[in-house]
């Protein structure tokens, strides 16, 4: 029986609310959820979905939170949910509790619920999804899947979504399978019709067509990074499955199967090996790169830990390698399906002995693609491991992002590789001879020349001609040159992006990676509280001169990051020798993506606590 408890005036919003789907893992809800998000996108409205899922295959709760924003905000908003689509009895109480006052609860009312299970300050909308589905379908799997589509139809009607757009999406999803398309459209309309016949427009959250999306595309960061690897010319991928990075290697496999199979012979212009562990993955990457193939691995924190010894070898023996680190909450297994930026230090200084590595830090799928391709040029150019630092938030969620671009005249930068012709022409070759005074030396690839250019690669100390040496002077000269090379890397790493206000601000905010999504919104919230800030987004390590300059020109700089210890702040202090008092730590590390509300709250509170007078005085 219909249960509509309508005691409150619901929130009224257009194109600006948060919908959360509470699902059971493995129930087939993911595809209907994604359809919902993409339908919003097709209406020209900015949409940002996030998967919230446990480390589990089937049965445990999952959530899909969709932020719809006409202002174009892509960060998690924080706070309660405006519309909860509660499909999981297991998490009912917690889901109902998370609704904003005045928000909406959408649920399957096939079975009656006790009145005590509802809240008086939310609008409850019940639709008998299971009953409709069971009446229409016999097969249990069909009942489950079409129930999701009936639900989507009901929501579409309730929120005034563009139904033809959803139908078109279904047509694209099941291209050339006309029966499936028709069945899905039928289920969709079952939901729409029921709402129209039985409900009197209970939800005041509405969708309207807009033009916020532009030419942007919708893709997850792992796929974008994998595509970057394809365009970066990677031919060897060795990996070991680990959440949240597995989908990067799998996406690379899919793209290669589509774009890298020789049309005439059907043979692969790539080699992908699922290794026995992360040690083996990085070993293969190093072996392949030593032999002149562009190679990479994708992993997460525990994998980085396992690779430490090999990373030291690649640093010291100067072998290119690209490592995509899709960060998750550590230490140990930590929260393997939750996001964090927590491997900054373990990558920047990976391995034993004195090491410093190059990091690229993308903010979104567009940069995952850009930096994904760039990483291979840098690895060859600098002959060292390059880390591309994603996180789960970027890697595993579809995000609205600028369309990818490629310049067809672009060539792979293979760095300083001496060829047989060079050697034949009498060019002097010494593997660790710094002929250009930039710390980067020439290498040769195995098999190059019958009598010239062979050398021995080793993790032990050596002299400039790559001969084993335990002489202190040889060792030190080599270590100093490696430091010089790291300095040279500064000119290759993408510089920080700085945004200053019209007038000089006293405070600066440093952030990076997935924190960029909520930053614009946080800045506006700060402005409302009378705090003006300048912004600097770090995009890599080593830091360029602009980073130290930005910090120097502000009285106090907030370093916003998603880990407990303020790892980027430590790196800044350590590398730029900055007085720690000048860098304030703003850390968010509960595994959920950082929100604008958190950032603005933490910064404003801190300033108020230290009795700093706001830039714009509030006149009473």
């Amino acid at each position: 029986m219909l249960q509509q408890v309508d005691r409150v005036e619901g929130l009224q919003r257009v194109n600006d609310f948060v919908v959360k789907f509470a699902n059971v893992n493995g129930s087939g809800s993911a595809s209907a959820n994604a359809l919902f998000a993409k339908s919003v996108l097709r209406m020209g409205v900015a949409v940002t979905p996030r998967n919230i899922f446990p480390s589990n295959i089937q049965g445990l709760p999952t959530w899909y939170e969709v932020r719809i924003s006409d202002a174009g905000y892509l960060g998690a908003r924080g706070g309660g949910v405006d519309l909860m689509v509660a499909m999981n009895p297991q998490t009912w109480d917690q889901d109902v509790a998370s609704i904003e006052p005045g928000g909406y609860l959408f649920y399957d009312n096939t079975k009656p619920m006790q009145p005590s299970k509802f809240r008086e300050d939310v609008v409850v909308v019940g639709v008998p999804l299971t009953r409709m589905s069971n009446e229409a379908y016999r097969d249990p799997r069909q009942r489950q899947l079409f129930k999701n589509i009936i639900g989507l139809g009901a929501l579409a009607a309730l929120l005034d979504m563009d139904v033809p757009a959803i139908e078109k999406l279904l047509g694209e999803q099941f291209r050339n399978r006309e029966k499936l398309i028709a069945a899905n459209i039928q289920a969709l309309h079952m939901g729409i019709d029921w709402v129209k016949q039985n409900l009197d427009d209970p939800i005041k959250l509405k969708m309207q067509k807009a033009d916020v999306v532009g030419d942007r595309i919708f893709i997850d960061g792992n796929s974008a990074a994998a595509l970057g690897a394809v365009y970066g010319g990677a031919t060897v991928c060795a990996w070991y499955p680990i959440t949240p990075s597995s989908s990067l290697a799998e996406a690379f496999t899919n793209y290669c199967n589509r774009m890298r199979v020789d049309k005439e012979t059907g043979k692969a212009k790539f080699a992908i090996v699922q290794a026995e562990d992360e040690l083996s993955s990085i070993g293969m990457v190093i072996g392949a790169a030593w032999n002149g193939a562009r190679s990479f691995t994708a992993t997460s924190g525990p994998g980085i830990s396992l690779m430490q010894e090999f990373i030291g070898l690649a640093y010291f023996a100067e072998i290119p390698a690209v490592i995509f680190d899709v960060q998750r909450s550590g230490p140990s297994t930590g929260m393997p399906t939750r996001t964090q930026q927590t491997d900054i230090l373990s990558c920047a200084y990976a391995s034993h002995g004195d090491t410093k590595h190059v990091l690229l830090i993308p903010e979104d799928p567009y940069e995952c693609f850009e930096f994904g391709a760039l990483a291979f040029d840098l690895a060859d150019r600098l002959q060292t491991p390059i880390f591309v630092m994603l996180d789960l938030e970027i890697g595993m969620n579809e995000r609205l992002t600028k369309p990818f671009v490629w310049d067809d005249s672009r060539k792979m930068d293979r760095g300083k590789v001496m060829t047989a012709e060079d050697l034949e022409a009498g060019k002097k070759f010494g593997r660790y001879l710094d002929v250009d005074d930039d710390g980067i030396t020439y290498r040769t690839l195995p098999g190059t020349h019958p009598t010239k250019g062979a050398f021995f690669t080793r993790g032990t100390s050596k002299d400039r001609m790559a001969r084993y040496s335990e002489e202190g002077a040889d060792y030190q000269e080599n270590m100093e040159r490696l430091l010089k090379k790291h300095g040279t890397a500064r000119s290759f790493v993408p510089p920080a992006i700085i945004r200053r206000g019209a007038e000089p601000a006293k405070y600066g905010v440093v952030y990076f990676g997935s924190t960029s999504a909520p930053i614009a919104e946080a800045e506006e919230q700060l402005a409302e509280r009378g705090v003006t800030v300048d912004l600097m987004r770090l995009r890599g390590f080593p830091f360029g001169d602009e980073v130290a300059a930005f910090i120097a020109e502000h009285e106090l700089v907030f370093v916003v990051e998603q880990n407990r210890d303020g790892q980027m702040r430590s790196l800044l202090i350590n590398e730029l020798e900055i007085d720690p008092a000048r860098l304030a730590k703003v850390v968010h590390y509960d595994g959920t993506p950082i929100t604008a509300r958190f950032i603005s709250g933490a910064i404003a509170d801190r300033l108020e606590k230290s009795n700093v007078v706001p830039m714009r005085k509030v006149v009473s």
Partner: protein
Amino acid sequence: MTFIPKPKLHHPDLQKNALGYTRRDYEGPVSTLCAGCGHDSISAAIVRACFELDIAPHRVAKLSGIGCSSKTPTYFLGASHGFNSVHGRMPSVLTGANLANKDLIYLGVSGDGDSASIGIGQFAHAMRRGVNMVYIVENNGVYGLTKGQFSATSDKGAKSKRGLINSDEAIDLVGMALQLGATFVARSFSGDKAQLVPLIEAALKHGGAAFIDCISPCVAFNNHEGSTKSFDYVREHNEAVNAMDVITPRSEITVDYAPGTVEMVTQHDGSMLRLRKLHAGYDVHDRVAALTYMQERAAAGEIVTGLLYVDPNPRDMHEHLKTVDVPLNVLDEAALIPGSAALDRLNAGLR
């Protein structure tokens, strides 16, 4: 300094192979291992095998892990690129190198500590992937560089130089290689050059994962009474199942053998292995029987040597991966990068 180059002066009458190289062109700098070390004999056998097979030195990539055995690639094939990698991880580095360029010959040199202890996982997985390589374990049953600890291939009951008795079971890498799908498996003894050189030659000519377990006594720490890896012990207990010659198009057949005692095995590349059977019932093509035989003879205290198993037509990793015919490391932008038009289409599908 521990790098000792050898003088470049050659005797003018030094024999040359088909490529015009002398034996000296396959050597490296002077070994810094102990005088009399079995490993140096294996290096010499590698030099001779490459010379006799007319392999251009620069077409070989030699890789190793860490330990005495893993130092040896410095001491042979000085014109080859070498890679002394991480302890127990040579197999992954070699696998990666092979992925990048399937046209080179990959020679992996490891030890019993490097392959049977810290690197047993990588050893196992390289075998099961069918990496086209020659993988030699210079097996002395002892950690030499760290002064004489037992390794995982030390036999149960063997006595260390300090008088300790090993109470752990030995790991038999030959048995593992057989079980894990290596397509060429042999065991030899560094003191038996006549057996070892042809085995290395045959392995170099093999197109899949070739494994040679070479017992190589450690003169410093494991050559005493009570050791089961000493020169004397191995000589006394060595039971070769066959003797082999590798016949290349250049070599002449000079000796006739009684019918039934010789088997010719033609490998995929056309090289022929002439096997003289020393044990009448032994079949080099029966993986299961080989495993049983090895275990029976080991229980009887024998060290079985010779070519133990060969699949003359192996499929290697690249065949499994269906890679293109040219090495991946020569593919250029035109071959690898789908271009802006493909990217635009992709963008369009993501809206």
